[in-house]
Every structure is written in structure tokens, then in C-alpha cells.
């Protein structure tokens, strides 16, 4: 079998696809696991899945540009397309079908009410450049969402523009830079980032032209306050800290950290990816944070659809409130108005086209209204209780990295696997056969072979118990020396372990028509 067949189907010789001693089927299918070729391999030339009106007979007016001859797309009727995507969907794990304990990623229930609201034509079918007199409801919704975000964080201002969390980080660091520039303070070239930070934090700081200086963690999984203080000085523009941090712990010294950063003339950026642990219970402004992004798709349940879209509004304390990007909603004399262009003031340019991820705003507000202040209090409490429960039920078989209580996620490392020959990755793959999406592995980097588990508030005690029982049994099995079992996992999935090294060594990133592919292979 060649490693690389240019997007063409692998030949599956009858009987070759063996599975636990069971011979393969003629079709390559396994019961309900259907092999689905690429859409390009199902072409019937000339076929289409839409009915369109005839094209009016007019002379074309394309100027100097020639009409193209061909795109190269396949043609399929509607039922073929429906079946293709339905079959593909069945090869996916999702929060609707099972427990998804990805730490640091927050996979909670995605209520369908939110989807219904986002599809109201008054929201989904409005153009971003309609006259503002015709979109007053959309602007009012953005204003309400802004009110919720400011109230929940205690902050003075918010921009809804950023398209995702990392985009929000970029916005926050730009605001910090703009504020230093406005003061004529050009000597601040450095951003401090703890070792346990999300990779986007150092990437963002570096992209904005700062050098990144890492702060080590203490033995109890927090920022080393003394090390931090030693690094603070007139060259530090700010600190980027995640709180609760990526070890699942609350930074106990956070108020002292904020004071130290401020005393040194820097700003305090908080990565708000873990805000769901404290939402409705702790206001970030009360901790001394100057600026923080909020992932609507994590804290406020907007679905992340296989990796996006996201939405990353950023809240600003008084200190940075003037330095926000356009556009934003204001109260004008005839209702709501939109400020779409940066004027003379300190507000800086633009982060994306139009006004932000409106579809996500509708979903987030729908979720906020459904929970209310009382529900959010309960939700963050349940998220933390669930994580502590998982930790308590596992700590005698796995090795907890730090002493609790944890916040909304709990962290283990691979010491419990020492000498077994089984790796964290093997454990994760064995969990898949048990019907669970694995937890986050090998992150945060501050512990070896990390397993970071985040249950969220929408899991029942019964689902947690089932997961814990499975993980306990696997841990016992690993300790019993059954290495082969783990190394062969997963066995029951549409695909077994995939060769990621081969994929990276000679990347095949698209389908190529068979003739072209053969020519390529012959080169």
C-alpha cells in the first residue's frame, strides 16, 4: 500500500481489511460504518443538485476578462449530496452523541433554541450595510450582549468585533500597545507569559512585535510571584495570564500579581478561555485585570462546528477603554447608531470586515437569557463541582498533578503509567473504544504526559461515573501489563491509528484528477 495516493481511493482487496480476525466485506463497509468516497469520486458529468432558472439572453459585459472554460467540480444530484454528508457526519464524535472532556476547550451542551433564534430572518437575513434605520433590532441585540459582558466582568467597555479567542488576544495586545504609544512610552518591548499559557498567547505577543519572556510555575501549579516580580521593569508592556489557569487552578495571588504589574507600569491581560469556571461568581475587574477576551463558543455555548466559527469579544477596564477598535454600537438621537470608522481619537482601526460574528451574538444572548444571573451562578458551580468530583474519584488510580480544589477542569500526569509501557496517547486511544472522546493530552506543558479533563456543568453524575469507571478500568489494565491492548487501540473506529508523520512528510492536501495524479507520480 503506497503511503500517498494523491487523494484517490485506497484499493481495498476483498478480505484484506481484517479486524479482530473477522475478514473484510466485499464493499469495505462494516455494518453501519459505511466507506464514503470523496465527493470528487462520485461525479456524473453534467448532473447538478439545484434547479436554476434559464439565463436571460443578454450580451455579456465582462470587460477584458475572459470567461473561464471549466472549474473541474463534480456533478451530483441532491440525494447523492445528502447521503454523502450524512455518512460523513456519522464518522464524527460530537457533544450531542457523547461525553467530550477536552480540557481547555469547553465542550458543553449546545442548546437548539440558540440555533432557532440565530435563524430568525430578522437576524440571519440582514445585510451588514443596510441603512442603520432598518437594523435597529440587530444593534439593540449587540448592545444587550455588550451589557451582559460588561456586567459579568465588571468592565467599562467591550468590543464585539474579534472573530475568535486568538483574534481577541490580538485585539487586547494591540490596545495595550496603543496605550503605551499614547503615553509616549516606547521602551516596553516585552510581554510576560507563564509557561502554562495557551500557545496562542506567546504567538499573539510575538506577532504584535513583542519579545516573550516565560514565567515559571511553582510546585503548586501557580505563577511564581517572586519570579514574576523579578522580571517586572520599565521594559515590560504587560502580562498575559490565564485564570483559572491551564492547570485547572485559580491563581490565588492574582490581586497581588495585578498590583505588581500595574506598579511596574504594565497592563494585565487575562486569557478568558476559562471564564466559564467563574462566570457569574467572580468579576474579572475586581481581580485587577485590564483587558480580557471571552470565547462565546466556550463560556456561552455557541457551537464550534468542527473547529469554528468562534467569537472573541474583548472587555476593557477604564485604563484601556479608549483604545478599542471599530466598529461599535452607540446610542444616537434616533435610536442605536454604529461607529464604523476610526476618527481622530485613540480608538484604533478594524479587526475584521463588518461588525463581528452576529450569528454567535444571537446564540450567546439566547443562552445568557435562558440561564439568567441565577442560572449562571449554578452553572459555574456545577462545572467546578463536576471537575472536583472527577478528580476525587480518580486520584487513587491516576496521579493528580496538583492538590485541589481544582476549578472547572482537573489535571493528571503520566506518573501512574510509569514502567507500564503505556503512554498517555495510548490511554486516550483506548478511551475511544469505550465510546468517549479523549481528554486533552500533553497540555499544559508544565507537567509530563498531561491528561486534562473538563466535564462542564452539562454532564450528569451518571455520565461522569460511567467515564470514571472506564478510565479506572483502563488504568488498572495498563498497570497489569497489557501493553499490546493499548498499542492496538482504537480498534472499533472508522479508522485505526493514522500515520501523521507520513501526512506531514509529503503533504497531500487536495484531490487531484486521476490523470494528473498519475502524471505527478511518474515525475
Amino acid at each position, binding site marked *: 500500500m503506497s503511503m500517498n495516493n494523491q487523494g484517490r481511493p485506497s484499493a481495498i482487496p476483498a478480505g484484506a481489511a481484517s479486524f479482530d480476525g473477522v475478514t473484510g466485506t466485499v464493499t469495505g463497509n462494516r455494518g453501519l460504518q459505511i466507506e464514503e468516497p470523496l465527493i470528487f469520486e462520485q461525479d456524473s458529468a*453534467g448532473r447538478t*443538485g439545484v434547479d436554476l432558472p434559464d439565463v436571460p439572453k443578454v450580451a455579456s459585459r465582462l470587460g477584458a476578462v475572459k470567461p473561464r472554460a471549466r472549474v473541474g467540480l463534480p456533478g451530483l444530484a441532491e440525494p447523492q449530496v445528502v447521503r454523502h454528508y450524512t455518512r*460523513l457526519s456519522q464518522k464524527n464524535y460530537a457533544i450531542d452523541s457523547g461525553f467530550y472532556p477536552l480540557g481547555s476547550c469547553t465542550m458543553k451542551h449546545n442548546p437548539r433554541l440558540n440555533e432557532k433564534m440565530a435563524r430568525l430572518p430578522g437576524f440571519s*437575513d440582514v445585510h451588514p450595510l443596510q441603512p442603520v434605520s432598518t437594523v435597529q433590532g440587530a444593534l439593540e441585540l449587540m448592545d444587550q450582549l455588550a451589557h451582559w459582558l460588561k456586567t459579568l466582568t465588571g468592565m467599562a467597555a467591550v468590543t464585539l468585533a474579534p472573530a475568535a479567542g486568538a483574534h481577541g488576544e490580538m485585539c487586547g495586545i494591540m490596545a495595550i500597545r496603543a496605550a503605551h504609544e499614547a503615553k509616549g512610552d516606547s521602551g516596553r518591548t516585552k510581554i510576560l507569559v507563564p509557561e502554562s499559557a495557551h*500557545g496562542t498567547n506567546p504567538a499573539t505577543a510575538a506577532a504584535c512585535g513583542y519579545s516573550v519572556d516565560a514565567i515559571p510555575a511553582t510546585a503548586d501549579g501557580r505563577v511564581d510571584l517572586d519570579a514574576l516580580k523579578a522580571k517586572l521593569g520599565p521594559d515590560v508592556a504587560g502580562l498575559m495570564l490565564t485564570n483559572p489557569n491551564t492547570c485547572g487552578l485559580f491563581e490565588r495571588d492574582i490581586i497581588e500579581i495585578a498590583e505588581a504589574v500595574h506598579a511596574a507600569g504594565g497592563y494585565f491581560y487575562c486569557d478568558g478561555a476559562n471564564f466559564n469556571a467563574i462566570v457569574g461568581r*467572580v468579576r474579572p475587574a475586581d481581580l485587577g485585570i485590564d483587558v480580557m477576551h471571552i470565547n462565546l463558543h466556550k463560556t456561552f455555548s455557541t457551537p464550534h462546528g468542527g473547529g469554528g466559527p468562534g467569537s472573541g469579544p474583548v472587555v476593557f477596564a477604564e485604563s484601556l477603554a479608549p483604545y478599542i477598535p471599530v466598529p461599535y454600537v452607540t446610542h444616537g438621537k434616533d435610536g442605536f447608531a454604529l461607529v464604523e470608522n476610526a476618527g481622530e481619537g485613540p480608538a484604533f482601526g478594524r479587526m475584521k470586515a463588518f461588525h463581528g460574528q452576529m450569528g454567535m451574538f444571537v446564540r450567546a444572548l439566547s443562552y445568557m*437569557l*435562558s440561564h439568567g444571573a441565577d442560572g449562571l451562578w449554578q452553572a459555574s458551580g456545577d462545572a467546578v463541582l463536576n471537575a472536583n468530583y472527577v478528580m476525587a474519584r480518580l486520584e487513587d488510580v491516576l496521579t493528580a498533578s496538583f492538590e485541589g480544589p481544582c476549578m472547572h477542569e482537573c489535571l493528571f500526569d503520566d506518573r501512574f503509567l510509569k514502567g507500564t509501557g503505556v503512554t498517555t496517547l495510548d490511554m486516550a486511544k483506548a478511551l475511544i473504544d469505550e465510546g468517549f472522546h479523549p481528554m486533552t493530552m500533553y497540555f499544559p506543558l508544565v507537567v509530563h504526559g498531561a491528561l486534562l479533563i473538563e466535564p462542564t456543568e452539562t454532564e450528569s453524575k451518571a455520565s461522569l461515573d460511567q467515564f470514571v469507571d472506564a478510565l479506572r478500568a483502563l488504568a488498572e489494565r495498563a498497570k497489569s501489563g497489557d501493553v499490546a491492548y493499548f498499542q492496538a487501540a482504537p480498534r472499533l473506529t472508522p479508522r485505526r491509528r493514522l500515520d501523521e508523520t507520513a501526512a506531514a512528510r509529503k503533504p497531500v492536501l487536495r484531490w487531484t484528477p486521476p490523470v494528473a495524479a498519475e502524471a505527478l507520480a511518474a515525475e
Partner: protein
Amino acid sequence: MRYLPLTEADRQSMLEAVRATSVEDLFRDVPKAARLAGPIGGLPNHMGELEVERLLGSLAAKNIPAGSVPSFLGAGAYRHHVPATVDHLVQRGEFLTAYTPYQPEVSQGTLQVLFEFQTQVALLTGMDVANASMYDGATSCAEAVMMANRVTRRKKAILSGGLHPHYRDVTTTDARFIGFEAVALPAAPTGGEDLLALVDDKTSCVVVQNPDVFGHVRDYTDLAAACQAKGALLIVVVTEALSLGLLTPPGDMGADIVAAEGQSFGNALNFGGPYVGLFAVKDKYVRQMPGRLCGETVDADGRRGFVLTLSTREQHIRREKATSNICTNSGLCALAFSIHVSLLGEAGITQLAQLNHAKAVQMADKLAAVPGVELLNDGFFNEFTVKLPKPAAAVVEELAKRRILGGVPVSRLYPGEMEDLLLVAVTETNTDADMDAFAAALSEVLA
């Protein structure tokens, strides 16, 4: 609290298991001064499903949906008919509620979709390879410039006056904070700018748009060759992806990078987002490309499968040395794009593009026949610019009172400039009656 499964009895037994006296006790690491004693003030308590529907429904009712009136708005966001099948499939929970495919064995659905999406984008743009989507067209454009800076090790970008001003602004915002030079030419409503004269040995790229923001279609073949001769890359931006069904694609003109907005396929207007950024490059730049990539490989049984690949460029491996800080993509919007393109197929996309163009030709002729209106375009796809005898913003406001969304005043995009210019977009959703109503209403307003 219908979203919370724990019962009071569950909570009590779980608290015993964790040896805590109360949930509040688990928050004991939070400094006391910052701990709220109960639910936060200033916000309402929870609502039932019916109440939420009523409240959000009342807000939605204050907007005029574009589809409820004759609508001719474009300028980077286009109202096309999306087949019912697209939204139905997108809402399958296995797509909607999945996360980034970090575990490929249980994410082959998402991964195969991304592989097919990459192929569709490469075919449409005429480029070698595409990534698995960016946030939107504007951020895709800014990332393209940053990529050109990396590839050429130069730090000056030339932005055409035909580039959508939002795209220009996103790029110049990045230029200010990230530290490169972006030379933006003045708006060119009738075209005619000598981009090549500005290219020097510090120029990393020239950014042009096709059709440009005023609707002009252009052939950039000569510009591509000239840029190449000077060691600069040509970035072609496309805001109306459907145009790729009819026009010579940027790849055939010699573009190095294509940055586009894919909203036109499968994605509703949504008041500006979420949309889907397209990003395609020549083969030799693959490892400099930002964003996610899905690649083909084989599994332990030798069967074809897909994984996220080349992640060594990315923030979660390279951290401060990463190619870009981008982490999220537009997975679900890319899925909608992909399904719509699959439904259209070769025959459908060609016909849909021809239909859009033909209707736009009809509309342009109707408007040009209105006294005082002048058409500025010789060549266009489905959008064009007209010059009015009055400020366009006031005209559009008057038209809105007559329940016609009659285009985008150019001054909305360029405040204080070109106040008599109006951008008009026409798609397959506009009926003959819509077009006649628009022309008649414009005659009245201008009379």
C-alpha cells in the same frame, strides 16, 4: 435551569465525595474580596424557552430582512439562495457540536469535509492548494500580506485603491501593530492606477481585488508577471466567490496567493458574520501558509484517512515562533460552503454565475436609463457603481422608506468621499419585478 442535569441530591453526594461542605467551599482559592455572595446583580434571572423566543423575536422584528423586500446590497456580502439541504446538513449534531478534529480516528467526517473543501477552493481559485478556512475575507487578506512578508523577507505591501476598504483597514491595523508598511492607494472608482510604479526592492506584495470594490473586473496577468520580475508576490482578493464560476481564476492570471470571502456559498448574510475566509497559494508556499490544513494519509490497516497536518507551523507547537496566532477556523461555515458547491457542481456553478451576470447587466441597463444616473463600469460581474445626481446615502434612506434596499452608498465605506456614488449588486434572488420596482423608485426619488 433545563440545561443543568445535577439534582440537589447529586450535588450533596458529590460534595461528600470531594470532602467539601458546599460548592462555595470549592471556590476558596478565589480571594475573598472578589467573591460574590450570590448571583450577580444587574442581570435578570433565568427565562423559559418561550420567554426567550418572545424577547429575541421582538428584537428580530425590528429589522428589515433583506429577503422581505427588493434588495441590492453587496460590497463584500451577498444574498444568494441557499438550498434547504445545506442548512439541514449543517445542523446535524455530529457536525454542529464537534470540536477541532484533534482525534482523527473519531473525526473523519470533519476531516474529509475539510479535505474536500480545500480541493474545491483550489479548483475555484485556480491555485495549487488551499487551507481549511480563515475567519473571513478581510482577515484572510491581512494574513496573506503577512505571509508575503515572510516569504520575501520584505516589509512593504502595496494595496490597490480597488481593494475593499474594510480589507484595507484590517491590513493597515495589522501593519501598525505588527510592524510592516502598508501603502494604500486612494479609492479608484473608475479604475486606472499604476501599481507597478510603486513596486521597489522593499515591496513584498501587491494586493488587488477582482472584481474590485467598485465592481470592475480586471485581468491581472501582466501585473503578476511584472511583480514576479521584481521579486514581489501578487495577492488577489475576491469578495464575491461566485464570480469564480465565470471569470478567469486568479491562479490562471499568475497570482501567488488568493484571499477570498466564501460567504456567497452556503452562508447567510448574518449581519456580517460568521463568514468563511478562503486562502489558497502556489505549492511552493505551503509551509508558509497560516491556518489549519487537512492532509491525506493511511491508517494502521493501510486505509485512506485524513488528519490535521503541518502543525509544526502552528501556535500550539511553535508558540512564539508560529507562522500565525490563528487557532480557530470557520469549520462549520466551510462545511456550508462545501455542501452548496457540491450541490451546484460544475454545471450549476457555471449557470448560477451566468445568471448573476445576466441579471446584473439587465439591472445596469435599467438604472442607466433613469434620468441623471450614470453607470461607471464597462466590465463587471454582478455588482456595479452608478453616479447619482444627489448624495447616495440620502437616496438609499428614501428608498428604504419605500421598502427597497437600494444598494450601498460608497460614502458608507469611505466616509466623506464620493457621496454621489452608489454600489448596486444583483443576484439570482432578484426577480424582474424587484428590478423594475427599484428602477421606478429611484426615478421617483431622483425626480
